[in-house]
Every structure is written in C-alpha cells, then in structure tokens.
C-alpha cells in the first residue's frame, strides 16, 4: 500500500531516475569508466548553469505568470559586473553614484503623487505636459552622461585582464570631485522629471497612497545618502578592492554581481513589468526588447569582444590534486576524480548549482516568504485579502530570480567567455529547461536542467566519437523537450490544468 502510494505521488521523478540509471549503466559499459565519468561531470556543470537561469524563470512564471525574456541578459549582466569588479572595479565605482542618483530620482514618484494630483491642468494639456517632461528628462540625462569616461574605463578593464600581475597600474585617475558632483545631481533631476511625468500631474483620478509616499520618501533619502558615499569612495574604492586577497575579491565579485542583477530586476519589475499585469503579452514584448537593449548597451560599453576572467587563486594553483581533500589544501587547477582529471573550478559550479537548489527549496518550504509564494502561485487575491502586500512580494521574487541568474553568470564567468551573446545562449536553454520541468516547479527546473546538461555533454561526446555534426548535441535538448511534451503536456512536474 505504502509503496503504491509513494509510486503514485512520485512516479514522474522515479521514472526519470530509472531511465537515467539504465542509460548510465549502458553508458558506463559501452564507454568505459574514464570517458563516462568525464562526460557526466561536464554534463553536471552545464546542468548547474542551466538551473541557475531556469530557477528564476520558473519562480517568476509560477507566481506572476510573467515570461521574462531578459533572464539571459541578467545572467550576462551578472557576469560582466562581477568580472569587471574582479579585474578592475574603477568602472563600477565610477558608475555607482550615477545609478543611485537616477534611482533616487525615479523613486520620487510616490512622493510627488499627493503634491501634483491636485494641480489644476486642463485635460488636453496633461498629456502634453507629460511628454514635455519626459523629453526634458532625457535631454538632461544625456547631458549628464555625455562625456562620462565610459569607453575609456572599459578599455582600462580590457588591458587589466591581459596584465595579469599588476592590475593596479591601470586604475586611472578620474575627474576631480568638484566637477563630478554635477553629474549625479543632473541625473537625480532627470529621474525626478520622469517620476513627475509618471505621477500624472493634474489627473485627479490617480489614487494617492499616503503611507507609500512616506516609505518612498525614506527610500529616496537612503539612496541620496548612498550617492554621497559612492561619490566619496569613487577613487579610493577600486584601489582598496584590488589590493584585497584574490579569493575574498572573488567572493565580493559574486556578491556584487548578484546584487546588481537583483537590483536591476527590482527596478525592471517596478517600472516596466508592474504597470502591465493586465496586458501579459506586452510584458513578454517588453522583456524581449529589454534583452536587445541590454545586449546593445553591453556591446557599446565593453565592445563586442569575448573576455576571459581569470580564476580565483583557490582554483588556480598549478598541478593536479590527488583527491578532493588534497584540493582543499592545495587549491589546484585540476582534481583527480575516479581517475579523471577534472578542472576544479567546474566542481565549484556544480556545488554552487546544488547549493542554489537546496537553498531555494528550503526557502520555499520553510520560510514565511516561501509560504506566501506557494500560496500566491495558487490564489493571489486571497493572499492579498489576508493583509499581505502581494505587489512587494512580486518585486522581491522577480529580484530573487534575476539575482540567481546573475549569480550564475558571475559563477560561470571564469570558465566560459564573457561576451554579449552569452545571454541568448543561456536564455534558450533556460526556457527549454523550464518547459521540460514544468512551468512553476523548482524541482522540475532542477530535473530539466539535469536532463539537458547530460544530453548536451553526451551529445558532444557522441558527436566527437563518431565524427558527427556537433549540432546533434544541440538538437538533443529540443528532442527531449518534444518527447516530454508529448508524454506530459504540462512538463514533468507541472501543474495539470
């Protein structure tokens, strides 16, 4: 009885496990131990990366029904931000005050609401005023940014990656503080003008939320304080970062990359996605457009070149560790696993992926936020009726999703090229992963990622061995998706509706 019930509840997972087991026994005997272990480990590495993209996708889709086509771009931004922070953070430190200032300006919207909704403006002038404000904001914004040393900073970063020994030599002097201040100020003004336009001056039908104005006021104040701090440490910051120990710097880079991704996600959700919940198709289009914009911006700032991020010292000591324990002491480049020489950094990626899955599962299962997410997936209105601010949960979950992708990006940066096409590449695989696993299921995303990663790795192996076209490994993922969808239209662990 018990076994029967267990089978009924978990038949999908168990069948997948059985199929994988059968395939691996077959593979083990037909391939021999060495190639089998190597291919499997490569597959796990890819699985971990796919999961990092897919986790955010499936989480956001499950709760909010939003298909985020910019998820791959978030991975890319995480990779660029982390890599830039690790090799030469001058650029990021120069950018930080400007970004904070713009965000402070944009957050003014809720503060402006109660002030401007009572203005008396004839109706036909309201939309013209808004257009005028937006044009003005863009002009001021461009004025503020024009001449900023973006391109120059980017080229110092490029040089720094090549001069392995001493990146400090490339940390260039920047413009004097006194003349720098004008930029964040102008950007704050530009942001505030956009906020003013969004607050719809004179439109008395706008509902004014008092407590929200107060909260936004505090956020604006906090952001302005950040602008000041960021401006002051603009020059000393990069030096301080570059002189810290490489491993610590890598950990910091992981954190910075994740925070940039999560912060950007929060901004995107509140400004672009949330006004469009009534028009789901527009959300798809806007995230798609965003992916193009981000890709172009990255090519503008960093040139369309592939960069290689060096591995942190903990994974770059020459020589091969005899086993995992020896690696922990020596920090070697490669590790011996069951007789296979495997790059140690890839093990780190696998561990990161597993950690992310376990962490996410625990958060979903045991925290209040997780409970609210699971409840919200089923019935948003009821969650709201319990007195929970679902909108804020949405922003949080979106930021969590993009943050996870960004963490995946910076994690992957030391062994895949950091380039402007990496977003698209992982987005596609992430979507296939989510479709296989079932929209909205985290475990499904993990299973899908596992299948996909292994399919890619073994596909590559077969293509090499029988000198077939490498396209079969790419095709294999789509074939798996087709088979799964034929057997289970909702995906392996998707909700059946």
């Amino acid at each position: 009885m018990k076994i029967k019930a267990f089978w009924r509840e978990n038949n999908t997972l168990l069948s997948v496990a059985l199929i994988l087991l059968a395939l691996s026994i077959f593979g083990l005997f037909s391939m021999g131990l060495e190639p089998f272990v190597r291919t499997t480990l490569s597959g796990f590495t890819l699985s971990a990366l796919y999961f990092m993209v897919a986790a955010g996708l499936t989480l956001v889709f499950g709760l909010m029904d939003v298909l985020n086509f910019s998820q791959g771009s978030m991975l890319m931004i995480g990779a660029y931000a982390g890599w830039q922070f690790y090799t030469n953070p001058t650029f990021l430190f120069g950018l930080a005050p400007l970004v904070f200032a713009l965000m402070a300006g944009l957050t003014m919207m809720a503060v402006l609401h109660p002030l401007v909704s009572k203005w008396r403006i004839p109706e036909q002038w309201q939309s013209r005023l808004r257009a005028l404000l937006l044009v003005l904001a863009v002009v001021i914004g461009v004025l503020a940014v024009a001449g900023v040393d973006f391109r120059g900073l980017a080229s110092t970063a490029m040089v720094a990656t090549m001069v392995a020994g001493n990146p400090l030599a490339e940390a260039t002097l920047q413009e004097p503080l006194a003349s720098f201040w004008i930029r964040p100020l102008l950007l704050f003004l530009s942001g505030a003008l956009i906020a003013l336009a969004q607050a719809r001056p004179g439109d008395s039908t706008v509902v004014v939320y008092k407590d929200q104005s107060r909260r936004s006021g505090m956020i604006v104040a906090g952001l302005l304080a950040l602008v000041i701090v960021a401006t002051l440490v603009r020059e000393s910051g990069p030096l301080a970062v570059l002189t810290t120990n490489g491993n610590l710097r890598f950990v910091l880079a992981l954190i910075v990359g994740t925070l940039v991704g999560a912060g950007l996600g929060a901004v995107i959700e509140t400004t672009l996605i949330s006004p469009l919940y009534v028009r789901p198709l527009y959300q798809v289009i806007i995230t798609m457009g965003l992916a193009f914009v981000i890709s172009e911006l990255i090519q503008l700032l960093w040139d369309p070149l592939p960069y290689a991020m060096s591995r942190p010292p903990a994974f770059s000591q020459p020589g091969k560790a005899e086993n995992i324990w020896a690696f922990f002491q020596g920090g070697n480049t490669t590790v011996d696993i069951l007789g296979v020489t495997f790059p140690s950094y890839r093990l780190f990626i696998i561990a990161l992926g597993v950690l992310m899955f376990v962490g996410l599962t625990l958060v979903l299962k045991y925290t209040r936020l997780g409970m609210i997410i699971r409840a919200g997936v089923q019935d948003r209105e009821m969650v709201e009726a319990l007195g929970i601010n679902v909108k804020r949960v949405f922003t949080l979950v979106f930021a969590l999703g993009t943050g996870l992708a960004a963490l995946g990006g910076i994690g992957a940066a030391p062994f895949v090229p950091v380039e402007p096409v990496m977003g698209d590449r992982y987005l596609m695989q992430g979507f296939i992963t989510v479709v296989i696993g079932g929209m909205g299921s985290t475990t499904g995303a993990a299973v899908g990622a596992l299948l996909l990663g292994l399919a890619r790795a073994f596909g590559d192996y077969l293509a090499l061995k029988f000198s077939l076209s490498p396209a079969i490994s790419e095709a294999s993922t789509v074939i798996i998706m087709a088979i799964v969808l034929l057997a289970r239209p909702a995906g392996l662990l998707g909700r059946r509706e």
Partner: protein
Amino acid sequence: MVEQDFILEVDAIHTFIGQFHILEGVTVQVRCNSITVLLGRNGAGKTTTLKSILGLTPPRIGRVLFDGRELQGKRAYDIAAMGIGFVPEHRAIFRNLSVAENLRIAERKKGDLERKAEFIFGLFPDLKRLYKLPGNHLSGGQQQMLAVARALVADNKLLLIDEPSEGLAPILIEQMMEAIRELSATTTVLLVEQNFLMASRLAQYYYIIDDGKSVHQGEMADLIHDEALVHQYLGASVRVEVGASSGRGGGK
C-alpha cells in the same frame, strides 16, 4: 442612531469590473457584534459587494467606512490588515499548503496562531487532527472549516463570509452554523448566504441586493414572515420552513 453603532458603513457604492457596471448603488450598514446577511439571487452582486468592501474590486463611486475610517484609496492588503477577515466562496483554501501553513500564513503578528489556537480548535476540533495534512487531502467540509478558521487567526473585528454552506451536507451546515454563531460572540459577521434557512436562523439583520442595488433591509425576524418579499427577490425555490432542514445539501 449613533455613528459608533456601526462597524461598517457602505454608502451607495458603484463598482465596475472591466466595463461592466456590477454594483449600481449598494448601501449596507453592519452593526457591531451582529450577524448581518446579504440576500439576493445569483449574480445580484453579493460577492462583489464583499470584494468591494475589501478593496479587491475597489468601488469607483461611493464610500466605505470601517471602524470610523475611510477605506477609499486604500489597497486590499491595508484594508485587510485593519482587521477584516475574508472567507471566500468555493472554499478557497491554499490546497498546496498544509493545514498548519494555511493558518500560519494568516498571521499578522508573530504568535497570532498560538494565541488563537485554543479558540479555533474549540470551534473546529477536526482541524487539530488534520493539522499536518496538505490542504488538498481535506474533504469539502473540512476545507470550508479551514477557510473560516483562517480568517480567525488574526485579530479581526469584522468577518466577511461568502456562502459558508455552499455544497455542504446538512449535518455539516448545522456544524458550520453553530461555529459562526459562536464566533459572532466576539466579532461582527457580514454573511452572504443562498441557503435562506441557514441565513434566517443565524442573522439578526438582512439586506436584499437585486441587480447591483440594495433594495430592502431590516430585521431578520420581520423578513421571515414577509413571504411575498422573499418570493419576489429570492425566487420561488426558497420556502421558509423553520425547523425543517431543507438546505441545498449534497456534497461529500
């Protein structure tokens, strides 16, 4: 009549859903510590009235006063947090959450559930036994009890209960009525109910909503004897047979 007698005052609200004008002037006043029932045919706008009070479908015209405070322009979660509990129709519990989690999620302050546990399990002893089970393993009656219990976890001054007897067997309707009567000793209840027998035995006051307008109001005791009025607005299917259990039973 003094203002403070009423915990909730709904004043001529108009609510639109999309382009449809659902409520065209609903006025409801709910007395403190009473049970008031909204009656009316299917699609008359009873559920929308509850949702409009809660801000889930905010009224475009008219005003709602709760506990002396204006609700216009507040969001649903703020309104709920002011002390309104909502029991939606169709037993909308969170099926993928356990019974414990269904209750836990309704907490507004830490420890709400611990403080209320005794009261809740006193009303619905079954839930204590089912505490660890997932919501989708519960029977219809148990789900309905959980939905009511969920609204009791936080300190709510007003409960909006939508069709608690829907699809329940007669014996469970009895139990549900007993529970609602018991909890109304400490809080105010605004009920939507199709089962006229249940409504007539529970509520002290009634409002009849027809075609999005509130058309009649008064004390329940008077309505029971006004068969013509009942017939006009609630349809012929409803017969007032006090004492007999003629509920729209069925279910599990």
